């Protein structure tokens, strides 16, 4: 029976017996269940597939960049050995805050690369009070 064929239910709805109603609605449930799950399962497969392809493409690009960077580093290290510079923290930012920011950066990028904080500045005034209120409203737990 084609999907369109089920629309015959509407015309016959009022004259149907209880048994017929049961059979016809079971057909709609089955169709709905199978189609919704099939489409969404297909979507799961496609998302997984293209995510894998994208991450492979991007990791390939990243490893190439890393290689280039490593080669450049080698050239530099032959000429001089330089210690990593201290992050340039703006005056008035306590050491504890610098440590917390460093920890947050490390937890976010851990494993991917070795992040380095060059400077820490107060954002001061980049976001209006209304924008702050919006962020709070959208991020607070229910």
């Amino acid at each position, binding site marked *: 029976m084609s*999907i*369109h064929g*089920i*629309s015959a*239910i*509407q015309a016959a*709805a*009022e004259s149907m017996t*209880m048994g017929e*109603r*049961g059979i*016809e*609605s*079971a057909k*709609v*449930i089955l*169709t*709905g*269940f199978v*189609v*919704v*799950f099939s*489409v*969404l*399962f*297909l*979507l*799961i497969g*496609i*998302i*997984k597939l*293209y*995510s894998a392809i*994208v*991450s492979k493409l*991007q990791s390939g690009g990243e490893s190439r960049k890393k290689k280039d960077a490593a080669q450049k580093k080698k050239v530099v290290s032959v000429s001089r050995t330089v210690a990593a510079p201290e992050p340039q923290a703006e005056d008035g930012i306590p050491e504890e805050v610098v440590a917390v920011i460093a920890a947050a950066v490390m937890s976010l990028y851990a494993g991917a690369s070795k992040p380095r904080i060059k400077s820490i500045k107060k954002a001061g005034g980049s976001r209006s009070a209304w924008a702050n209120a919006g962020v709070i409203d959208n991020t607070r*737990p*229910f």
Partner: protein
Amino acid sequence: MEILTGFLNAIMGIYKSSGLSTLGWQNYVMIAISCALLYLAIKKQYEPLLLLPIAFGMLLVNLYPGIMAAPDITLVQIATKDDPAAVGHVVRTIGDTIYYEDPHYGGLLYYLYQGVKLGIYPPLIFLGIGCMTDFGPLIANPKSLILGAAAQIGIFVTFTGAIFLGFTASEAGAIGIIGGADGPTAIYVTTKLAPHLLGSIAIAAYSYMALVPIIQPPIMKALTTKKERAVVMEQLRPVSKLEKILFPIIVVILIAIFLPDAAPLVGMLMLGNLFKESGVVDRIAKAAQNELMNIITIFLGVTVGATASGTNFLKLDTLKIIALGLIAFCMGTAFGILFGKIMYKLTGGKINPLIGSAGVSAVPMAARVSQKVGQQENPGNFLLMHAMGPNVAGVIGSAVAAGVLLNVVG
């Protein structure tokens, strides 16, 4: 004496055209209901963005039914085509009689309602929703789609209930879609399947969406154990910009090919999302999610409310719809949780079943409820982002379910 008679006639004319003589008892009941809804929208803030215009539209149409009146034409008989009364009018000859057309324009809300009737407003609302939706949690955990699909089972189960209560298949389909907990989808499907039920279905759908924090927690707690509710889920992987850009394009291709009836809703949702994720049309994205969405929300709310006139709304069927809508909503929540439990078992306890209830759409309220109930068991547990996956999957799932219903019973 003549002046007094003229005065009395004028007063009688005003009285006859006023609501005092034209409104029936049903209209007064509806005025009371609309005032109660206005109270809920303003004082209790239950989905005020939609409930307030809906309630006001309901109030207007019951005070002045002509505001939703369709345009019509009266044929006035004249003796000759050159009759001065016919100047500026279309003159028609039927048989030997000559008439001129005296047009009566429709009410304000009748014209605005055409956007609902023709299925224009709901997809435009979806455009704005697409601009505001982050599909990142869903892309990071595509299994969320299973929960989004499971929560739609309530729609089809309620369809059965409605059929057994004597509704036609089209009406049952429109009632079942309340379980999708998605206002624009419910309105879109109802305008296509059972436009005469639009008022009661829209009001039931938005009322239940507003009541998500009250309806869902008892079901969630009844179907899960303390141990399941306390599960802390692993952090989601970061999703690249390219994946986010590809997602709307792939989804719209897939759904429009397999289920064309869902294409208007899903297409607009994904277009809005592509505006957002592409990052190259910020102006359009902002317009779609702010100005356009706000304007459409006003038109949609007021005109949907205006379909709830006393004679249309005050029927036994409305009570049945409200009861069936609640069942649809509860079933959707329950099936989402039950599939969450299945996933909990299959993954060896890595999935918290509470995120399953968010599959009923109602973005982001349902996800917030998952977060809240999860935190009651474990204050350090943050389920919000995990629940956003099934939540946005529910939007896609309900649009797909709408496409199925339109195809099957439309």
